[in-house]
Every structure is written in C-alpha cells, then in structure tokens.
C-alpha cells in the first residue's frame, strides 16, 4: 500500500474581501503522519475542502498524484475523508450512513461491517446517529474514511471529542496506517493533541503558512523573554537590530536568539532592562508564538516558509 502524494500549489481562497487562504504551498508524503496545524479560523478546514473539491479555490491547485479530487476514478478508494462530526442524517443509522456511501462507491456491505469493526462501532452502528455522542460521531466519521481502504486519509480534527482511551487508540491507529505506507493528513488546532502522532507539520496562521517541515523544526529553538520599563524603546532597539519581537504580558518574546545577544542590543541602545530571561523554547511555546498573532495586531512571522529551514525572523 502506497498512498498518493498530496500536492498543494498556490492554493488561495477569497470570501468577499477576506482572504481566507493565501497562496498555500506544501507537499504531504506517503508513509508519514502530517499535522496540519493552526488556530481556529486560520483556514484549515477551507483548505481541506478545496483539496477535496467541495470548495472552489479562487486560484491554485490541490492534487493527489497530480489529479484533482474530482478527477479521481474511485474517490473513496483513493482518499478517505472525515471532515466534521455533524455530517450525518440524525434519523439514519450509522451503518446505513456507510451503506449509502458504499453504494455510491460500488463497495460491498462487507466493507461497511469491516470499517465499523475497525473503529469499534459494530454495536452502535445499528442505532440512529441522532443519539450518538461526539466521540461516536468521530468514530463513525473515521469508519466512513476507512470504507474504501484508501491510500490517503484526510482527517479534520479527528481527535477532538474522543475520550482518553479513544485518543490513545487513534494515535496508534494513525501511526499504523502511515507505517503501512499510506498518506495521512490530520488537522488540529492543538499542537499538544497531535505532537506524539505527527512526523511532519504544516502550520498556518491567518491563511498563510508560517512553518513547515519535520516536527523537530519546532524544537530546540532558543527564545528570550525580555522587558524594560520603556518597552517601546526596547522594541525599537530590537527591530533596529533586525529582530522581530512579540508582545506578551510579561514582556517581549524574541525567537532564535540567546539572552546575551538581546542584553547587548539593549545595552548598546541604552535601554535599561528589568527582565531578561532565556525561555525553554518548548514546542508549544513556539507554536503559540507562530500563531498567536491570529488575535493580535501584526503576525510575528509572515514568512511563507518554503522549506523546513526557513527562519521565522527574516
């Protein structure tokens, strides 16, 4: 089993005046789990819907081994998708929901039962979806994705709503699917949720890529938290030295530098400091730093990363 390679090339979507997705470019390879990360509203779902032919891109393309979703001869056997937990008719049983899809894909009912079995939904599948918990809907969505035994899996927030046991199970399951050579793309707004599952990350904020590459591009990044009574002067001094800083409650966060360097800049500019603290550079901190501008003024990093090694601060 070798999954297709997903190629996203210049994908852009404009809703009226709002640029929801801005010139995304990334590749999702088979054999690994790729996390598609960003805060809520960053454009993840819109991107996935464009990838699957549900939303028409303003420009750009998204392909599976060079073919758009709509051009696939057997879409459910090529790409398995779980987009949102609510896409079921409440009056239809879980099993019948899958049977409807199986008929459209020319798959036998045996595949339906196998998919339900895999996700532990054999019992619940006989009941109407209206009575399902969020976790059961997630499992049913995953069953639907697995229906055609596809080489590619595209899952939107698959861990959301699962209980701890379910989370442990799906992590192992996704890793196993990738180990078989499948292409696995999962989205999440929480890095910690997928940190133990993903090999590669594509991080977006405000519709633009802020970082992509192996998970460790997020790790071991020195950061410094610095503050001065005259914070504006400090920010100006850092900017003059070519460093971008992000305002936080406790001070200014600066990525990719050590404390000594920041101290020297402040000293040279004649700005007295009241705080100069090396940060652990924890992966979650970095993630927040990359994406927190979502609700702030200007993005800390606007560099549409073209590779794993692209520095965030230009």
């Amino acid at each position, binding site marked *: 089993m070798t999954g297709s390679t997903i190629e996203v090339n210049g994908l852009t979507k404009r809703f009226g005046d709002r640029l929801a997705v801005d010139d995304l470019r990334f590749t999702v390879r088979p054999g690994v789990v790729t996390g598609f990360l960003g805060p809520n509203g960053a454009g993840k*779902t*819109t991107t996935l*819907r464009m990838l*699957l*032919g*549900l*939303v*028409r891109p303003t420009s750009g393309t998204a392909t599976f081994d060079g073919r758009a*979703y*709509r051009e*696939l001869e057997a*879409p*459910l056997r090529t790409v398995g*998708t779980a*987009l*949102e937990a*609510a*896409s*079921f*008719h*409440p*009056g*239809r*049983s879980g099993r*019948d*929901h899958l*049977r*409807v*899809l199986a*008929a*459209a*894909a*020319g798959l036998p009912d045996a595949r339906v039962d196998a998919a339900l079995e895999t996700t532990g939904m054999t019992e619940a599948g006989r009941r109407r979806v209206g009575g399902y918990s969020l976790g059961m809907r997630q499992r049913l969505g995953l069953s*639907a994705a697995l229906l055609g035994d596809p080489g590619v899996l595209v899952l939107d927030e698959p861990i959301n709503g699962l209980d701890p046991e379910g989370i442990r199970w799906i992590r192992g399951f996704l890793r196993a699917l990738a180990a078989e050579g499948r292409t696995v793309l999962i989205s999440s707004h929480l890095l910690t949720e997928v940190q133990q599952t993903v090999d590669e990350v594509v991080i977006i904020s405000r519709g633009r890529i802020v970082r992509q590459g192996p998970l460790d591009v997020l790790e071991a990044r020195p950061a410094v938290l610095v503050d001065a009574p005259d914070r504006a002067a400090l920010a100006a001094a850092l900017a003059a030295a070519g460093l971008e800083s992000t305002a936080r409650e406790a001070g200014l966060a600066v990525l990719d530098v050590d404390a000594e360097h920041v101290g020297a800049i402040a000293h040279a500019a004649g700005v007295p400091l009241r705080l100069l603290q090396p940060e652990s550079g924890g992966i979650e901190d970095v993630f927040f730093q990359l994406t927190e501008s979502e609700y702030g003024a200007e993005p800390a990093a606007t560099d549409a990363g073209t590779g794993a090694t692209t520095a965030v601060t230009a």
Partner: protein
Amino acid sequence: MIRAIASEWRKLTTTRMWWGLGIVLIGYVGFTAAMFAGLFGAVAAGLIGADAAGMNGSPIPEAVLPSLVYSTVTAVGYVIPLILGTLSVTAEVRHRTLTPTFLATPSRPTVLVAKLVVMVGAGAALGVAGLVAAMGIGGGTLAALGIDPQFAVADTWWLAARVALAMGVWAAVGVGVGSLIQNQIAAVVVVIAFTQFVEPILRLGAAFWEPAAQVGRFLPGAAGDALVGSSIYTMVAVGPATVEALAWWQGGLVLAAYAVVAAAAGWATAWRRDVT
C-alpha cells in the same frame, strides 16, 4: 450513474421519511376518496337528493364517478411526492450530508440526475400506495352503493397508470424545487403556499377570461390534471371561458418540463456553490 442511483435509493429507504409521507398520503387519499364516493355515489344512487347535496340538481353520472374517485390520489395527494422530492435535496443541505455525498460522487450533475431518477420511482410508488387506498376504500364504497367500481374496465387501469406516472413526475418537480430553494423551511413553505393557495387562485381567476385560460392550462397543477385526465377540480370547473385542456401526454410533458427547468436552474445556481 448506476451507483449514484443505488446510493440515492438507499438514502430514501434508510430514514423514516418515505413511509411517514406514505401513511399521510394513504390516510388523506383514502379519506377523501371515501367521502367523494359516499357523497356523490349516494346522490347518483338516488339515496340523497342532488339538491340536498348542493349540486343544483345535476348528479355526477355513474360512469365517471369511479375515475373521479380514483383520481383523488393526484387531485389531493400530489403535494406529498412534491414534498418528498423537495426534502430529498433540502434534507441533505440541512443535515450537511452533501459533504459525504459529494465526496463519494464528486460529479454534482450525476447526483442531481440520480435524485431525479430515484424520485420518479419513489413518487410512482407513492402513487401506487395512494391508488390502493383510493380504489380499495373509494371503489369499495361505490360498490356498496350499488355503483360499478369499473375494475374490469381497461380505461380504469390506464387512468391508474397515468396517476402513478403523474405522482412520479411531481416528485421530480420537487427535486427541482429543492435544488433551487435549498433552505428546507423556505422550500416547504413555497411548495405549500403555491399548491394550496397561489395556483388554485390563478386557475380559478384564469377560468373567467379566455386568453388567461389559454395560459392557465400550462400551470403545473393544470398540467398534472391534464396528464391524469380526471380531477375533482376539472369536474367542478367554473367560469365562462371554455378552453380545451391539454392532452394527457402534453400535460405530462409540461409537468416534466417544470421538473427539468427547475432542476437545471437549481444546478446553475445553488447546486454549484461551495459546500462548507
């Protein structure tokens, strides 16, 4: 296309909607047919004076009574397949199941055509259920009053076939309406308002002026009645304008044209939108 049709058929048969509407149809048509058969039958049999029944001394002839009673399936019941067809589209919008539908069948025209095909079948099946009620209860009532229910006459079964066909085409019109007006509540309100108020008023008004009556023949309800060839509304037609109704096949084509035009308009507008 075959697969999309199979999928649509499963969608129809795996929720309780179809038999819920089926029961409503059977109850409604059965009651109406029994009432007509009982009232007009009693008048024709001389059990009630025609004047007492408010019919101005002109009872409906025994010979046409059975077809009048059996055509209540479409005369009062056509709104049921129309709603079934409408819901086949709007329910997918409402429950956001267009997402899995289009993931499984990315060609959206294929999905729309499959819905039309399945709904013609489902509407005809509703028609058969309604005919069982109308011919069973209404025909039984006529027989009890000593009036021949005409089950042995070929024309009766030819009428039944046209009734089933009309019910199928009405369901297809519903698919067109639903694909054009995707909001479920709005679509159902439009269907009820048009079939119960707007069109009856238009047809009644058109009957008083010849040129309007010419156009009125092409209203969907009038075309549907022409296809069946018998309806309580044509029986009690009022007004001075005398315009020949459409032939049954013309009525069928006009009604089918409504379905196709509405579906095509829906396809050109709402059906192509982003599914979010």
